[in-house]
Structure formats: C-alpha cells, structure tokens
C-alpha cells in the first residue's frame, strides 16, 4: 500500500511538474497584464510538435531540437504580445478575453495545418527503468522531474535576484510606481511573454515525451493550469508550485487507486473541497 502510494506520488510529480510550468507562465502573464492567456496551452503544444518534427522529419537529435523549439517558443510569445495583446491593452477587459480565445483557435488551427491531427510522441530513446526498493522510476520520468525543478528554481532566482525580475514583480504590483522607478513598461511584457512561453514549451515537450501530443491537449492543459492557479492562490508563485504538485499527485493517486477514467473528476473534486475550506487557495492571501 505504502509502496503503491509512493509509486503514484513519483508518477504524479512528473505530470505535476508540467502543471507547475504551465501555471507559472499563466500567473506571470496574468500578474503583469491582467490577461487570461488561454492560448498558452496551444502555444506550448506548438513547441512540443516542433520538437517532434525536428527530431523525426529533420533527423535532429532530441537534445538539439529542444533549444530550437524553446527559441521558436520565445519568439512566438513575443509576437503574440506585440501583435495580439498590446493593441487591446487599454481597451475593455472583454476585448483581451476575446483576443485570447481567438488566438487559441488560431494556434490550434496552425498546429493542425503544420503537424496534422495524428497523435505524436517525441522519440527520446530513454527506456531504462530505475528501481529503488519496490518503486520503479522510468529514467525519462526522472529527467522530467529534475528538469521541471531546475526550470522552476531558475525562474525563482531570475524573479527574486535580478533587477529585471524585480521590475517584473514591481510592474505586477503597481504599474505607475514601477514607471516612477524608471522601469520601461513596454519591454517588461515582452520579457514576461518570452519567459512564460519558454516554460510552456518546456512543458509541451515534456508532455510529448511522457505521453503524447494531439489536437486539444493544449486546451485541456490550460484549463488545468488555471485550476492550479486558483488552487494555489491567484498571483502566488509558491502557490502555483504547490498547487501544480498537489494536482499532479492527486490525479496520479486517483488513477492508480480508483480509475484513470475518473482522475480528472477526482482531481477537480479535491480542488473544490480545498476551495470550500480555503477560498483564497492554498497559499493565497485572505481577502
């Protein structure tokens, strides 16, 4: 029983890492621009597809395809900010909302046109399995967990320890005061979209390597990402990290002990229960 729980927890950490990466991107964009960036999941999947395409049709090693996909993701994120969101920045909130929905459909359509509707798996060739006592850990899963931790730590260091990171926080907390500190509030959103999309593409690659990429996966992921934000507490980085991990482990345990068909239902029931007790989320501040 204990072994089984530990096993499912390890499994849950991998998918939890994906949720955390998606949620951190969403919360940073929301904090700076007040935009619910629904297209985030589909753009992340674009990065996953691109990695698959480069690794298969172009014959690139996966490790070489990943940086190319990350770079393409950053570029795409910056373009999305400049071309789609910036023009509606000072307009009514519903405008950005509609833009975000339209963008999701567009990116899904682009994915479909470029990469087709077949489900694809990124061929990593990582098939070893480590055993610790009675627990089995496929090496791919372990690398995904480690990569997710490294990315999260890197992002926290960037936000907490660098001038640009602090400027991002300052803009999120008080835009006018940030201007008075000399922060260029036109370049900050570019950095935020670049960073968020890079994290998202990393998550998309992880999904493509661990499971599979197919049309609609990105949209499902963005819903989970927002669920994580609410579970963890809106606007809180530690909340997004805890929320994503909790959601991943809950799903995994639910799938292992009850049924994988019900894992999403159970995960959302747990989320609703948490919010009934703590409406502000796990680490959110009380209103």
């Amino acid at each position: 029983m204990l072994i089984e729980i530990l096993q499912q927890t390890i499994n849950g950490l991998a998918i939890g890492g994906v949720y955390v990466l998606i949620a951190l991107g969403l919360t940073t964009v929301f904090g700076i621009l007040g935009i619910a960036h629904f297209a985030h999941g589909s753009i992340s999947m674009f990065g996953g597809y691109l990695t698959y395409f480069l690794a298969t049709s172009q014959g690139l090693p996966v490790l070489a395809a990943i940086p190319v996909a990350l770079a393409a993701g950053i570029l795409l994120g910056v373009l999305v900010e400049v071309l789609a969101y910036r023009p509606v920045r000072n307009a009514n909130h519903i405008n950005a909302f509609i833009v975000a929905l339209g963008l999701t459909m567009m990116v899904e359509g682009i994915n479909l046109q470029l990469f087709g509707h077949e489900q694809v798996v990124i061929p990593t060739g990582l098939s070893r399995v480590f055993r610790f006592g009675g627990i089995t850990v496929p090496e791919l899963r372990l690398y995904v967990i480690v990569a997710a931790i490294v990315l999260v730590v890197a992002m926290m260091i960037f936000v907490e320890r660098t001038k640009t990171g602090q400027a991002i926080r300052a803009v999120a907390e008080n835009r006018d005061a940030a201007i008075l500190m000399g922060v260029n509030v036109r370049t900050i959103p570019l950095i935020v979209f670049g960073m968020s999309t890079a994290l998202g593409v990393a998550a998309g690659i992880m999904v493509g390597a661990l499971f599979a990429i197919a049309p609609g996966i990105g949209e499902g992921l963005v819903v989970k990402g927002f669920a994580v934000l609410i579970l963890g507490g809106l606007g809180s980085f530690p909340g997004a990290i805890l929320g994503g991990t909790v959601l991943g482990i809950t799903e995994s345990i639910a799938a292992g002990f009850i049924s994988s068909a019900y894992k999403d239902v159970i995960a959302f029931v747990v989320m609703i229960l948490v919010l009934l007790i703590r409406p502000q989320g796990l680490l959110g501040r009380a209103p």
Partner: protein
Amino acid sequence: MLAVRDLRVSYGGIEVVHGVSLDVAAGECVALIGANGAGKSSTLKAICGLVPASGGAITFEGRDITRASGHAIVRAGITMCPEGRQVFPQMSVIQNLRMGAYTRNDSEQEADLSRMMDMFPILRERQSQAAGKLSGGEQEMLAIARALMARPRICLFDEPSLGLAPKIVASVFETLARIKAMGMTILLVEQNSMMALNLADRAYLFEAGQIVMEGAAGALKNHPDVMRAYLGH
C-alpha cells in the same frame, strides 16, 4: 533647471490644467499649493510623464522632455514620490528600496541603501517585512527613501502628508527639511499650505487649473488672500 511653459493637461477631453508656467532652479524648494482638484498633482504627473501633456512644453536642464516616456524622464534625473505612497506591497522594504535604484549601474547602491536606513532607522528594523504591512507613516518614509535611492537631480513630492496623523505629518516635514538641507532640489505639491510654505523657498498658488499667485514663500504666507482662503485666518 526645470521649466514648465503653458502646460495643459486633459483627461478624456476635459482640460484640468489650463496653461501653467513655472520654474524650479537648482537647489531650490518650490511648493505648489491650492485646493483639492486645482491641477497641482496633474501638473506633477505631466512632468513625470505619467499623464501626457495636451499642450505646452516641459524642459529639464535645457532638454525638452514634454513627450518623453516616464522611464526616460527618471533616467534624466527626475524622480517622484507619489501621492498615496504607492509602495510595492508584497515586496520587502529592502526590495522596495532597491527598486528605487533601478536605473543606476554604479557601485554605490549598497552604500546608499545603508545611508537610507541610517536616515530612517524604522526601515532597517523592518527591512525584510512586506512593505504593505507597514503603517501609513512608515510607508511614507519608505516612499521618500525609495525616491532618494534613484539619486535624482530633482525630487517631486506629491501630497506627502495626505491621510497621515498630525504627529506623523510633522515628522514627514522634518524629513523633507533634512532632504532640503542636503541640497536636494524639491518640487512639492501639498494641501497643507502652512507646512508647505514654512518649508519652501518659493510657491505657486493654484486655483481651478491655473496659477493665480506666485512669489517667495514668506510673502505668500502673509498675503491676506492666501491667509483667508488657505491658512484659516
């Protein structure tokens, strides 16, 4: 140093500043006084680039900054300590102070940081606390220290006494007097006209978006109209 000529500011097509001209010389402390809604704060915000000027010109050290963006104006040497303090509430006191030095690349930032905390011992005591947890008076001190961290050539203060208890107001003005004594050029907007006129060298009296009187602070303080309308005599 700072010259404002025939400045006009509008919000949504409604003009609130109708052609204001004022000057601040290096080392001077100038106060803008007048009733609430007279256009004082809007004038400051236009100087800082937070709101666009709809007409007129603003020059700083001979450079036209009328259409410059907010961050460029800070880099030129103009810093504002805004109305309502506007600290970054979830960032710590020390992170707020470091944000004040955002535009700087020199090596003396840490020295300035400890200088600020010598000047405001409460900030040293509370350095790792979230700024939003400080009292109103402490937040005002933080906002002032944060503005000074930029090493501005001129520092603008927008209603520093607003919403503070009388005892705290007195200590805010003592602080401003110390900053003035350090040789800082100051442009101050303040509803508490008596305090402002006691501190300033010169003052401009605003009424309904225009300057109706200007002169040495002492002269304005003793002017019968000013006394009747703003000083409660």
